[in-house]
């Protein structure tokens, strides 16, 4: 695809294991590309000011606030959104942890919480409560008071551990 003028750019990126060639406006943020152009509405926009973390996705494996990255900055990169995590029949252990511990109420912050937690638990497999609290400092939840989320991430860590032990 070619970009018709200077205000747009043709980019290629891999989203959830699928390669996409798209033309984006230069000002488009990654979250707008994901939601509006690629139809991946699992990623939410909460504050749009880099505070709430509802838009968290992985870019080259690193949790990223997708409202604070231009789509053109993701050119050539690999993006994973909540749609690329688990499946309807088989939850990712982190999703399962949130389900078991009721780590959500309205669910709006959950996709971002899950994406942050996956990367965190891969780095710190058996975290303390304090480490969990620090890890989700960039993800805001206005319903739960965080208690069940923290429990859910602890449970998810044990589930991931059990999964890697059996596989």
């Amino acid at each position, binding site marked *: 695809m070619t970009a018709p003028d200077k205000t747009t750019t043709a980019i290629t990126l891999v989203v959830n294991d699928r390669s996409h060639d798209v033309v984006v406006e*230069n000002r488009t*943020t990654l979250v707008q590309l994901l939601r509006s152009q690629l139809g991946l509405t699992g990623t939410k926009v909460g504050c*749009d*000011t*880099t*505070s709430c*973390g509802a838009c*968290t996705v992985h870019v080259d494996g*690193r*949790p*990223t*606030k997708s409202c*604070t*990255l*231009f789509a*053109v*900055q993701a050119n050539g990169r690999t993006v994973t959104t909540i749609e690329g995590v688990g499946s309807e029949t088989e939850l990712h252990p982190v999703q399962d942890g949130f389900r078991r511990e009721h780590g959500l109420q309205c669910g709006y912050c959950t996709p971002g919480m899950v994406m*942050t937690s996956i990367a*965190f638990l891969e780095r710190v497999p058996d975290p303390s409560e304090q480490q969990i609290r*620090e*890890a989700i*400092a*960039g*993800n805001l939840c206005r319903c739960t008071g965080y208690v069940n989320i923290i429990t859910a991430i602890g449970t998810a860590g044990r589930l991931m551990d059990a999964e890697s032990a059996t596989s």
Partner: protein
Amino acid sequence: MLVEHGDDSKVLAGGQSLIPLMKLRLAAPQVLIDIGRISALSFIEEQDTELLLGAMTTEDALEHSDLLRSRYPILVDTSSVIADPIVRNHATVGGNLAHGDPANDHPATMVALGAGIELQGPAGTRWVPAEEYFVDLFTTAAAEEEILTSIRIPAPASSEGAAYEKYERQVGDYAVAGAAAVVQVEAGQILKTRVALTNLGTIPLRATAAEEVMRGAAANDPPFERAGLLAAESTEPWADSRGSADYKRRVAAAVTSRALRRATQRALEQR
């Protein structure tokens, strides 16, 4: 490109300050020059007498560096209180400095450490001491066509310790007040102290009166509180949503004495 587009252009590093500013229409560059992918600008390297940091090194990389944890813990103190963990995956040390925002945390740390800032432009490379780099609010010594490429920090002397303390209302907020302190101990006395403060003026302020009252004091009982009060007197905070000027001076005194205490403790552990 900076020469060609001049005022209309902005250098984009990690984008964690510039993109929010653009959304608020506080910045509206016509041209963005993305240097975030220049991997040669991302490194943490210790040489004989100094530490070199590439401008595009992320806060996350600083926070989790074993070398920094053991040799330059003040940089771990600083990077780990900037914004939040997700932002730190993209935010860079060079961006934090080049932005020229006195509310950012690295400026005070670099001033206290006596760091050098490397600027590159069409005319070549030059080094500017951190203390001269910050000129005014959002204004640095870099010329329009220059970019910040690396930071040079002198290796710590023997029995030197350094620490950064920030008081923030909540994670992700700027400091109400922050203090970076470097303390060198010799023969049971404080030999040398450097203190610089975050978000208490238009640039990171040196607190020379606090430094002087520390000099020559017994290392086992330095005048931390007195130094904190002297540091607070030298500040020029303004009232805003983070508090009145008077409140900020009180916080400045507290964070300064805490930073000095921790730096002294680290200096004593070094021996």
